């Protein structure tokens, strides 16, 4: 029993070491800082600048966060404070299924619905030309995928707020929205921030759905109606050719290592806050 547990707990270490060993030849040619900040991506000449991919990832994630955060917060407030029991009973399976749908299904949905929506409605509205396979489309699809994940955590955080606090606020004459705003939300502030942080980490590592709608072109432009090329998509798109070009496999494993480190750190920090709120 204890061996099983130890194996699982050491897993991130194994993954980290394994990826690092594969990626290490890359460090002999370029410094870490150089790898992350340069923009030239020419695998045949041995030039690996990861900035366009990191920028795309950050951009898609930021958009997804902006779209999903208000929805999650409001829905969580409604479900914990205002809604009937019947709605909650319906919502449980709804959230579960949304969370359980595979990302490739979201990708298909994105191609069928979101990409035409972006190219036919949003793009003409801002007077540019675009195929619809854009950072914007990636952001919207990703936002929908993150909603059940963030929502579940915020609901859990709201449940830890003692009922007495809210009752005290109500008895002092506050309306129920005022008690939500000043008591429930304020009390669970660290928990809400953590839920958002974990949602961002999840969005940052999402692969297939984003890659299907984001266009996959190497460029670092800050326009949501241009195609992007996030880090996970880089890894997934090029696995076929990576063994035929020298150093290419190291570069891709470095990308995976980068994802692992960033996401693990975000997770460790925000999970810590969540545990603090739960322990109280």
């Amino acid at each position, binding site marked *: 029993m204890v061996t099983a547990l130890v194996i699982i707990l050491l*897993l991130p270490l194994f993954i980290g070491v394994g990826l690092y060993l594969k990626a290490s030849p890359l460090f002999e040619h370029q410094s870490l800082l150089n790898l992350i900040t340069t923009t030239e991506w020419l695998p045949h000449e041995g030039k690996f600048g990861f900035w366009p991919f990191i920028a795309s990832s950050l951009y898609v994630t930021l958009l997804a966060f902006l779209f999903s955060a208000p929805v999650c917060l409001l829905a969580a407030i409604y479900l914990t404070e205002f809604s009937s029991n019947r709605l909650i009973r319906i919502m449980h399976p709804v959230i*579960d299924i949304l969370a359980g749908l595979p990302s*490739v*299904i979201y990708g298909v949905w994105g191609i069928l619905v979101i990409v035409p929506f972006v190219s036919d409605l949003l793009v003409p509205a801002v007077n540019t030309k675009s195929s619809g396979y854009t950072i914007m489309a990636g952001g919207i699809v990703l936002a*929908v995928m993150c909603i059940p994940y963030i929502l579940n955590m915020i609901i859990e955080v709201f449940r830890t707020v003692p009922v007495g606090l809210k009752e005290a606020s109500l008895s002092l004459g506050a309306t129920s929205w005022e008690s939500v705003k000043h008591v429930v939300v304020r009390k669970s502030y660290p928990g809400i921030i953590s839920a958002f942080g974990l949602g961002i980490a999840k969005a940052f590592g999402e692969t297939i759905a984003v890659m299907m709608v984001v266009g996959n072109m190497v460029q670092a432009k800050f326009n949501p109606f241009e195609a992007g090329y996030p880090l996970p998509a880089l890894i997934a798109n090029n696995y076929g050719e990576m063994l035929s070009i020298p150093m290419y496999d190291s570069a891709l494993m470095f990308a995976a290592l980068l994802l692992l480190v960033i996401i693990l750190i975000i997770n460790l920090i925000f999970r810590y806050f969540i545990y603090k709120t739960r322990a109280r």
Partner: protein
Amino acid sequence: MNQRKILEEKLFKFLSGFAAYSLIAILAFIIVIIFLKGFNSLSWEMIFKTPKGGYYYGGEGGVLNAIIGSLYIALGATFIAILIGMPAALYINVHLIRQKRTQNTIRYFLDALWGIPSIVYGAFGFTLMLYLGMNASLLAGIITVALLITPIVVRTFDEVLNTIPIGLHEAGLALGSTKAETGFKILFKQGFPGFITSVLLAFGRGIGDAASVLFTAGYTDLIPVNLDEPAATLPLAIFFQLGSPIPEVRERAFAAAAILTIIILIISLGARIISKRYSKSNIK
């Protein structure tokens, strides 16, 4: 009360209600779109035949190779995940029951492990494969997916075991059972509904994940017979065939999407029903 207060109250009640109901609408929207597109092309031939003339260019045949491949990988991975995950979850709740601090630290790390994206597992599985000199195969796919879903099995099973009253545990020990017996015979039985839910959850995650099998399982038009043969999977069948220039092949992708969605819906609802049924016989 003044007017502004009431207005704010009403506005936010409306907004938050709108946000909550819109989730139901989004889910319905996704499922309706996938089914409308998929049922157009779904037929018995689609389910029971393998593709003819190459999955990318040949228009005839179905996605049986992907259905079988996905089931093999998800079943194998779930089996390994149970073998490792179930004892681990019991250990946390039997041997460490007095050490709340250690318990919580372990849970904290497991949760963080859950957050690692599947593409990283895929890349790691790939390095492991190269290191062991394996080719992209059913076995490599199973191992990678097992790594991905084991934390899920442990954490969800543990969550249920955690709610079992300590009195039950103590009663077992007082009757002279060893710690292992308490774990496997008492806690496992009491937590069985949770166990089923966690297994189904992990299975659903395993069957739907594309990024982890992309490197490791390969892709083929044939149904794998041995562990060292490559295997097609449903998510990759959708992903690859959707990029094909031939409309019939894209139809196959939509059909596969509908099949995958149905499988996920069955798993999700089945987990609810089963866990409800089995929890009736529990000691409360």
